[in-house]
């Protein structure tokens, strides 16, 4: 295994024992944990849904039915398309994009303030304060919002208490709680790449721009944002990916009438025991994620290494 893969002969460079450890660890990870499970899931998504005992039997054949179901609905349905699933899918993507944009807009001023305006001790304090909520379970953070937004929750009780409203506002039913929760859930994954990117900008560049008569807005548009581009792309990618694949927050906060796409997968998988269809829907989610990452890399001309550091 030589010179085609490595800069130096692998076993000679690391010594036999260590080289074997490296190989075993990496092969175990790449092959057994990453690649084979995904491939097997891909395979399963093209198979008919049969109980374990019937596997390999006549009922176990390759089929497109699960993907067809996603687009056209069940065979007994009268609709031309599977409006319900497609609707869930479209809404999930659309809301995820909105959440990503909202996160970017909310975080930019704070990231800029901490990176360039605040004095070092304030900045440290703010950063530590940002990290603390991040270490609290996503479920519990969503739960905190649920306490606020429930029909007899803190906000409704407060508002009725002071007489602003006389009937509870249905925050959960209208998914206001869900949207707030999704923005809340991954906001720090937008904050830190942004902060790191802006922090690395030389303050002299900002001052030079101001000195040359550039307005604040223009300075941001022409100097800070182009410099922070990798951070912005990184933050947006992470937030979008996590939002689109979120399960914990929707489980706690989504209204009973609406579903988030991963919840749909969960249903096929755990409740309807249709693993093949669950796999097919997973593949669809995976494809969307990959397309999004590739699109971000293409549009903003950044490398994958810059997105995840």
């Amino acid at each position, binding site marked *: 295994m030589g010179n085609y893969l490595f800069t130096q002969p692998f076993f000679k460079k*690391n010594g036999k024992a260590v080289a074997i450890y490296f190989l075993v660890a990496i092969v175990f990870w790449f092959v057994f944990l990453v690649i084979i499970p995904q491939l097997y899931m891909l395979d399963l998504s093209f198979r008919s849904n049969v109980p374990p005992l019937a596997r390999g039997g006549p009922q176990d054949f390759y089929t497109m039915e699960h993907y067809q179901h996603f687009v056209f609905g069940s065979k007994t349905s009268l609709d031309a398309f599977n409006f319900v699933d497609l609707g869930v899918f479209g809404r999930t993507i659309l809301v995820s994009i909105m959440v990503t944009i909202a996160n970017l807009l909310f975080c930019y001023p704070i990231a800029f303030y901490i990176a360039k305006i605040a004095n070092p001790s304030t900045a440290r304090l703010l950063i530590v304060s940002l990290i603390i909520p991040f270490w609290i379970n996503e479920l519990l953070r969503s739960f905190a919002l649920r306490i606020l937004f429930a029909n007899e929750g803190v906000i409704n*009780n407060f508002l009725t208490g002071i007489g602003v409203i006389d009937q509870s506002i249905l925050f959960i039913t209208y998914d206001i709680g869900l949207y707030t929760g999704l923005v809340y859930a991954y906001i720090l994954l937008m904050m830190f790449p942004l902060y790191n990117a802006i922090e690395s900008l030389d303050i002299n560049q900002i001052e030079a721009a101001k000195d040359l008569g550039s307005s604040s807005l223009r300075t941001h548009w022409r100097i800070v944002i182009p410099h922070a581009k990798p951070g912005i792309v990184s933050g947006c990618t992470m937030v979008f990916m996590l939002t689109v694949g979120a399960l914990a927050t929707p*489980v706690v906060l989504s209204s009973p009438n609406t579903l988030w796409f991963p919840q749909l997968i969960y249903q096929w998988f755990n409740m309807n025991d249709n693993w093949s269809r669950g796999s097919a829907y997973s593949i669809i989610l995976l494809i969307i994620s990959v397309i999004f990452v590739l699109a971000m890399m293409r549009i903003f001309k950044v490398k994958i290494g810059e997105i995840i550091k």
Partner: protein
Amino acid sequence: MKPTYFINFMMGMYIFIFFAYLFGPLIVMSITAFNSAEFPSISPWECFSFRWFNEGKIAYDGQHLAGLLSDWRLHDGIISSLIIGAGVVSLSVPIGMAAAIVLTQVRSQLRDIYYSISIMPVLFPGVIIGISTVVLWDRIAGLGGDGFISDVGRNGIFLTILAQTCFISTYCFLIFVARLQRFDQTQEEAALDLGATQTQVFFKILVPYLMPAIASAAVIAFLFSFENYNTTVFSILSDQTLTTVIASKVRLGISPALSALALTIIALTIIAAVTYEILRRRSEKKYAQSQEIFVKEKAASGRINKEYKAGFKVPKGIVAILLVLVFATYGATQIVKNDLYGQSCIDAADKEKKSKFLEQLQTLESNELTEEELSGGSLGGTEDYGDIFGDPSLFQDFGGFD
């Protein structure tokens, strides 16, 4: 300069609102943990109590609402979470380290591909990693008959360790890559030149250098594992971890016991953060001192030895603590003044509720509607797929009422 003041004021307001958004829900939730009412709230304040941290309560209608100490499901969940965390740490740290070191050795043409494969798992949605692990191992277990493989392949804890390791290894990998970027490779060459074998170079030079990364990778891996839900909920099968217990509780109704749990976690987090910060500052100070001594020894010039007296300044932290104290005192006096604490208060509240119980039974229909909505239990799904909350088995998992 009025505009600058205005901008500064707006900025300050914005930062305040932002942090209020981050912390407000957590603070409200923490307060609800001390309210004895069975629905987490602040404004109809029943009694100040620690019951949700302890044994919970027996409700007026006979239901037992478990508190933190008396909830055995939660305890089981925590134990399996700890086991899984330990398993994930002991797999993902060595994997991440090996992958990061090998990254420095692959040819530059292959480096991009190798790096992309390594970070792919964090870009996969968590649910997918969970599902793919389960379907694969179910197949493997099916092949092996009834023996050991079948048991292992259907063991939720084992599957969860594997599934979490898949993407947590990437986080470890990234931590090691960052540390290795600053590694001076001539140190390896120097050690070799001095007669060390390659294995000795690894253990005496590289591993000691990577020690801080190993420590932080272990901590990160454990925390990510401990709080993971999306992957775990699939791979855990019939077992329960802390997060799946929490999720099934939240689904069926929100209880102040969860507030108590969250507050405990918040407190632990803050203690850990503060300890870490103190340790870090101490070691930094130590390093600075040793540097200072060296500089003083080296340059006897008086300029460095001159001491600067810092002007007196009120630290911001103290202001914050004072504010918190003021609010806490106000709250406490309110509670004491209105006699809203202690056993007598709780007894009175329960009595009142029991008397209302009959009344409530009469208006059962309307009550049912609201409660169902609150617990997220009403179903709106189409017939085509059952509702996510409509699964009867979920109610068996529910640990709140025993």
